[in-house]
């Protein structure tokens, strides 16, 4: 890349069930907090990238029209990005690539979703499946991830207790994060006694429906140095898409439904660019997009933290805990707060804060190098970004 894209500002709203602010107010709040954090005003921004996933959540078609002025985009180039849950990750990648190429010097990236407006989120999710061959079976996010989890359990790749421990870790880490939505101390027994949604996904194995917005200011390393503020440099970017129908991915993967080859492709790309050969040793912290504990566990090996089939050992060893050797989601992650179109950008922003040393109560001591992932479309779209503290 011609320039090193560098994050210099992060802004987030609180993530809540029914945030009382209007949607334009939400994105404007996140954007202005990111600008303030960067020491910028809106005049310093050259372009705006907007991340929001299914319009059906807000019930306003073309939210890019609705929110352009609240995003500070008047008079500037503006782009909307949508790759399902990976939207926020894709938006960060697009902004970083644009800065890297020298097209714009400073970009404001804003992610939004309010998943609490519609009466039933799972009803919305039935519409993201194939209208001819899948929708009649009423597939949803919950049923499809439940099938993946059930298959992984039957294959002996994880246990319901390990899933519970990851849920406990994420809701517990969220207690350190004032923006997080679900902040809870839980026990394995409480998780395993919570209502079953679809085997083996229980209430406390799932993410909440969150409203919220997040924003990031990104610029060149040169401009970042001028601001005299800590920055987080994007040193590696990877992204990959997979086929639409879940049933077609099965044939490609020895480990059936639980495989996530596109995350392997995306992380390999990011590591290659960042010069990382042993992720578990060379990364200090991971902000992973994983709204369910089994998706987190199965992703450990996909991003190279564990050997194939050995992901769950990281849970048993406590390696991914807040004080473990490779903490995953110290912010509480998507399991604690999931404003979908923003969530990938939240992972990116939290990874940037860790690399800057500005993550507050959930800062991992001495973190220098962080990985942020994003996942969308029932494991169809992935992004991986490595961020490092600016020297």
């Amino acid at each position, binding site marked *: 890349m011609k320039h090193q894209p560098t994050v210099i500002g992060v802004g987030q709203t609180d993530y*809540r069930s*029914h945030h009382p602010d209007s949607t334009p107010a939400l994105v404007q709040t996140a954007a202005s907090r990111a600008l303030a954090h960067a020491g910028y005003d809106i005049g310093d921004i050259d372009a705006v990238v907007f991340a929001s996933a299914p319009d059906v959540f807000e019930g306003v078609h073309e939210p890019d029209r609705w929110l352009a002025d609240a995003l500070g985009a008047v008079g500037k180039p503006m782009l909307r990005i949508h790759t399902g849950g990976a939207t926020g990750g894709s938006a960060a990648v697009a902004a970083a690539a644009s800065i890297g190429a020298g097209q714009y010097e400073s970009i404001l990236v804003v992610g939004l979703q309010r998943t609490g*407006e519609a009466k039933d989120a799972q009803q919305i999710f039935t519409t993201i499946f194939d*209208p001819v061959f899948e929708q009649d079976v009423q597939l949803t996010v919950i049923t499809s991830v439940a099938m993946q989890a059930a298959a992984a359990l039957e294959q002996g790749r994880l246990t319901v207790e390990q899933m519970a421990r990851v849920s406990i870790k994420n809701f517990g880490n969220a207690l350190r994060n004032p923006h997080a939505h679900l902040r809870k101390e839980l026990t394995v027994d409480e998780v395993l006694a919570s209502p079953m949604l*679809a085997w083996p996904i229980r209430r406390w194995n799932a993410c909440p429906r969150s409203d919220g917005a997040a924003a990031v200011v990104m610029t060149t390393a040169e401009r970042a140095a001028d601001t005299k503020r800590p920055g987080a440099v994007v040193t590696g970017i990877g992204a990959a898409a997979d086929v639409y*129908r879940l*049933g077609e991915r099965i*044939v490609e993967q020895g480990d059936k439904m639980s495989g996530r080859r596109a995350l392997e492709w995306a992380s390999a790309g990011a590591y290659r660019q960042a010069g990382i050969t042993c992720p578990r040793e060379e990364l200090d912290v991971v902000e992973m997009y994983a709204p369910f504990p089994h998706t987190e566990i199965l992703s450990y090996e996909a991003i190279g933290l564990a050997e194939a089939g050995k992901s769950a050992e990281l849970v048993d060893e406590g390696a991914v805990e807040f004080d473990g050797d490779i903490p995953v989601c110290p912010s509480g992650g998507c399991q604690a707060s999931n404003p979908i179109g923003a969530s990938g950008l939240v992972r990116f922003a939290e990874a940037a804060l860790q690399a800057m040393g500005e993550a507050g109560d959930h800062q991992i001591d001495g973190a220098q190098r962080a990985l942020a992932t994003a996942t969308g479309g029932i494991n169809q779209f992935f992004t991986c970004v490595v961020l490092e503290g600016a020297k």
Partner: protein
Amino acid sequence: MSKSGDDMSAKDSQTLRFPGEWRIEYGYTIGREAAAFFDGIRRHEMLGSRCDACQQVAVPPKSFCERCFVKVTDLVPVELVGTIAAATVVTQGFEGSPPVPYSVAYATLDGATSATANYVRDVPMGEEISALPPELAPGRRVAVQFADEPQGRLSDFWFVPLSEDA
């Protein structure tokens, strides 16, 4: 970090909300492959699309092979029995869902190289689901059953469990 100024207002549960509704009718163009697939079901045949280049057979069929990135026109029948790739029992209903509990699975029919989703009927289940019913474990065999009066929809067929050695 800036103090989160929305904390106070977020505690106010009296958020004002307007009612709204999206109700839009569609007619989805399903294409030749899907039309042939549903015609096949009327003859009690399950059709897949076979790629000339890599010999992969997609069920349900599609008009291209994404691996070779070529058009696919060959439709071939596959067997009416197959193997469960993944399955679950849904225990909490949602708008538009069938009555709970119900079983849904991806199964790979013999001769196909991809799995297709449908309900699994006739799975013995109690009120409380504390494990995956053994009939739904990956690797277990299922058979296709056809509806008496096909409508040209996915509901024209479903799966039923077969005994372990079938």
